[in-house]
């Protein structure tokens, strides 16, 4: 039963011929690579299938999808290095706060001229992100006629994830009912947090939040303050309203109602130790794993200024070194189409960035949580769009303000000292 050498040679030869035939395609679609940061494996799989589907549509795009590393894995830091090395993809996603740094450094392409050749309309997307995406770096002000740095992939916002069992045990009114009645404000939030902490027993906390800028930033915005002055050229964390918002949040920590500032509040929330957990829509897939208590979401409590929840967003942008800007913009359009946004929204972690009812309906159909509307309401109720610093350095501001806030909440500096020094400390971010 010896294997015939001639037969082997014929088989190998045939295989070579077959492989050759496979490579003799005459059509030459534009070869593009693209990358985004998925929130979970399910999302990564959907992005990969979307990439294959677009290629299969034969619209002149031959795509290769690179899954970026996940949240908290320094996606942008690695991306900047890839760009410097010339190995970054043609199209990639970056968070809204980073648009200015990338644009000012000449790392991404102004796509306005390409957009003008297509049926693209800025008005299809939410105004907040589009305002930041159309800024002229020379003036620091939007100029939609001349500039378009990308298109938003999706938007998100904060909500309070509720442990309904702890709230019931505390004997306080359901925050969802209070929200419906228009009574869900800072006072009600503090009262609920205090009651949960008191009634929950050892280790139970009324609320939990992360240690990054948006968490304390909500209380700054909702208190009527702001990170920056009106034209975003200087720090405004020392304004009375900003300081009042932070004082309120500090009070919650000082009274012991919250998981220690800076600690990851998600594990204790999932363990049933936290009554109310501030987090974005991206936390929903994780929350759906909870089996040991009933949970839902509600809007963040209203502060002295109504609305002012964050409108988080990130955008698909085009690498300044791409060889095919037209095809790259076509890809950006494909990736932000109603169809694609609907597919991603169905996974529950993202809200469509297009003002499309069809896409929002798909988002609302993803339950639990029952109260998905809380996210949609926050997006439509005068949100503060996460915004880049066109006339400053966002990472430097984030670092300086973050250090000052952590010292404030951990009790190593007073509120007066914070008010007096925070903007001096952050002035380096504006070239000061």
């Amino acid at each position: 039963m010896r294997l015939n050498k001639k037969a082997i040679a014929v088989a190998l030869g045939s295989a070579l011929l077959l492989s050759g035939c496979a490579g003799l395609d005459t059509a030459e679609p534009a070869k593009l690579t693209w990358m985004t940061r998925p929130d979970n494996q399910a999302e990564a799989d959907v992005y990969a299938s979307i990439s294959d589907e677009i290629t299969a549509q034969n619209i002149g795009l031959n795509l290769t999808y690179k899954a970026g590393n996940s949240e908290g894995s320094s996606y942008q830091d690695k991306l900047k290095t890839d760009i410097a090395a010339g190995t970054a993809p043609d199209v990639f996603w970056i968070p809204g706060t980073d648009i200015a740094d990338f644009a000012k450094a000449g790392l991404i392409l102004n796509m306005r001229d390409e957009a003008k050749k297509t049926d693209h309309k800025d008005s299809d997307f939410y105004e907040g992100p589009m305002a930041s995406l159309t800024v002229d770096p020379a003036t620091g002000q939007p100029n939609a006629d001349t500039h378009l740095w990308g298109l938003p992939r999706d938007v998100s916002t904060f909500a309070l994830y509720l442990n309904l069992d702890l709230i019931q045990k505390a004997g306080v009114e359901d925050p969802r009912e209070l929200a419906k009645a228009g009574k869900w404000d800072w006072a009600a939030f503090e009262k609920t947090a205090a009651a949960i902490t008191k009634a929950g027993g050892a280790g139970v906390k009324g609320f939990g939040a992360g240690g990054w800028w948006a968490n304390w930033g909500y209380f700054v915005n909702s208190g009527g303050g702001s990170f920056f002055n009106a034209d975003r050229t200087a720090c405004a964390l020392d304004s009375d309203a900003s300081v009042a918002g932070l004082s309120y949040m500090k009070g919650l920590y000082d009274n012991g109602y919250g998981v220690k500032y800076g600690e990851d509040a998600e594990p204790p929330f999932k363990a049933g130790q936290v009554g109310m957990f501030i987090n974005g829509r991206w936390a929903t897939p994780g929350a759906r794993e909870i089996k040991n208590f009933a949970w839902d979401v509600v809007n963040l409590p209203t502060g002295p200024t109504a609305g002012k929840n964050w409108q988080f967003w990130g955008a698909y942008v085009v690498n300044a070194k791409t060889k095919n800007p037209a095809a790259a913009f076509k890809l950006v359009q494909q990736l932000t189409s109603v169809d694609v946004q609907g597919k991603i929204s169905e996974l529950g972690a993202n809200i469509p960035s297009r003002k499309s009812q069809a896409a929002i309906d798909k988002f609302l159909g993803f339950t639990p949580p029952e109260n998905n509307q809380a996210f949609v309401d926050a997006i439509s109720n005068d949100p503060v769009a996460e915004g880049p610093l066109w006339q400053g350095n966002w990472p430097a501001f984030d670092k300086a303000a973050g250090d000052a806030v952590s010292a404030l909440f951990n009790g190593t500096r007073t509120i007066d000292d914070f008010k007096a020094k925070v903007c001096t400390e952050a002035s380096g971010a504006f070239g000061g």
Partner: protein
Amino acid sequence: MNFLERWQNRRKKTSRIIRLLSNKAVTITPVWHFALAGLLMVAAVLSVLLPSTLGPLAGFGLAATALCAGLGILQVFIAIGLKRGSGWSRRAALVTNILFIAIASFLAFQIAKWILLFNLIGDAFYKAFGGLAIVVLGIAWWVVAVRIAKRIHDGSSEIEISPKAARRLRPVKVLKRVGQVIVLAGILVWVIQFNPFTLMFVALGALFVPNPLAAVFVLLAILSILMMRALLGEIMSRHVSANQSEEEKLAGWLFVAPSLLGFMAFLAGPLLYSLVMSFFDWNGSSRMTFVGFDNYFGTLGLQVVSNGDAFNVGFTKIADIFGLTVGALDPLFWRSMYNIAIFLVTAVPLAVVPALILATLIELRLPGSKVFRAIFFIPSVAGVIGVTLIWKQMLNSSVGFFNYAIQEIFIMLNFVLPGDPLPTRVEIGWLSTEQWALAAVVVVFAWSQFGFNTVLFIAGLQSISKELYEAAELDGANSFQKFRNVTLPALKPTTFFVTATTVILALQLFDIVFALNQPNVVGFPNNATLTPVVYLYQLGFQQGEFGRASAVAWILFAVIFIFTLIQFNRQKKEAEAI
């Protein structure tokens, strides 16, 4: 003329060229180096007149001009030296040509984008993974069948085996054949998936795209190779009066040259690049601006004033010492140095002393010591980021194991201790409060290091002569005295090595702090865990200040170098004293 004859003829022709070059080496090589000098001078002039022709190197401005001009002048000296028969010039010429081969090949690959072919090959391998998996399966199948067959005929040849064994062997032969068929099928699938034809077309297409600049660099590389052959020829050897020993040395250097080139390209090169970058203001993408020592002054700058006096502009108070106030231009850098100093004096003893104790206990060879030796080594082989995330969970103030354990201990103590009861709910913010955050990092670091250190100490202990212990026993020494007077002195070289490597690792602390802090700002809380490497990462990769980040890196290098030098000197003195 068949293929082999044609090939041999071509080799003869090549040999003739090399022979010719070798014979004329004394004349040709100086000319070549004069030509290189000319090329480098042209590059120097271009860097001044038309900086854009230098591409990314244009950012170096004057430094690029100086480098090109300096190398050009060196080539002139080499050429003159070669003409005069200087041995030094021959060695320098060889180094220059090796460098030119490397640089010209690299530039040719980059300019013509041939480097992308490696990406294509990588992609093709990735796509053909299925076929490869079938091949591996087939090989595994075949190996198992061969082993079964060996057991059946038990060392004797297949002809000599009994009819009974032959009968048993028959199905095994079929199994072997099936394995071979699977391998063959896998190869076929792999070939189809790998698609070598397309790859070949693309490769040929890329190679034959006209690119004059790439062709120039290829020519330069080929000429450099030929000149190397000429320099190594007998005529040149006689011309420079090289003796046997020198020739052997040269051959040695040439043998290590590929590895040396790799070292220079991937380690020394980037290091040098970062040193150069530390004198520039650069955000990683736009043009570099030469700033001299500003990055170093801006990082290290300190001012001391009497209490109450004002600092110069830019200085921020960092400390009060003996009635004086110290200000710094970069308070975060000094905070990171302060943190790393505290870290060093706490983490290094914790990573070294328990390792020594454990190694001694394991060497007592008590029952189960082998198992413990393996267990202690686990932290060294586990992924740092993975285990740090587990530590992060354990250190969580609300649901972490540490606080829970302390709480349980307090509850037990409350049963036995008189007086006010200890708190029954413990919520220490190991990661979120300034007084504990660095301590948490110390614990994680020490835990991750001590296993490896234990293994090193075990190796050290096993190398101590048993006779020393026997002599000590004869002198009436007890266990502690043996440990104090025999083990510790004999372990000094190991202790030095363990301490030195742990100190270096501690000074380079990054991954643990970074993983423990995510997603908070680096150095959280309020810079309590900011280390020099974390700080330079933040400066470079988050704030786009690569020049400043490089300066911090070189300052840290100087600190590590000084530490290691002191340790080496101490070790040397002690060894000399012994």
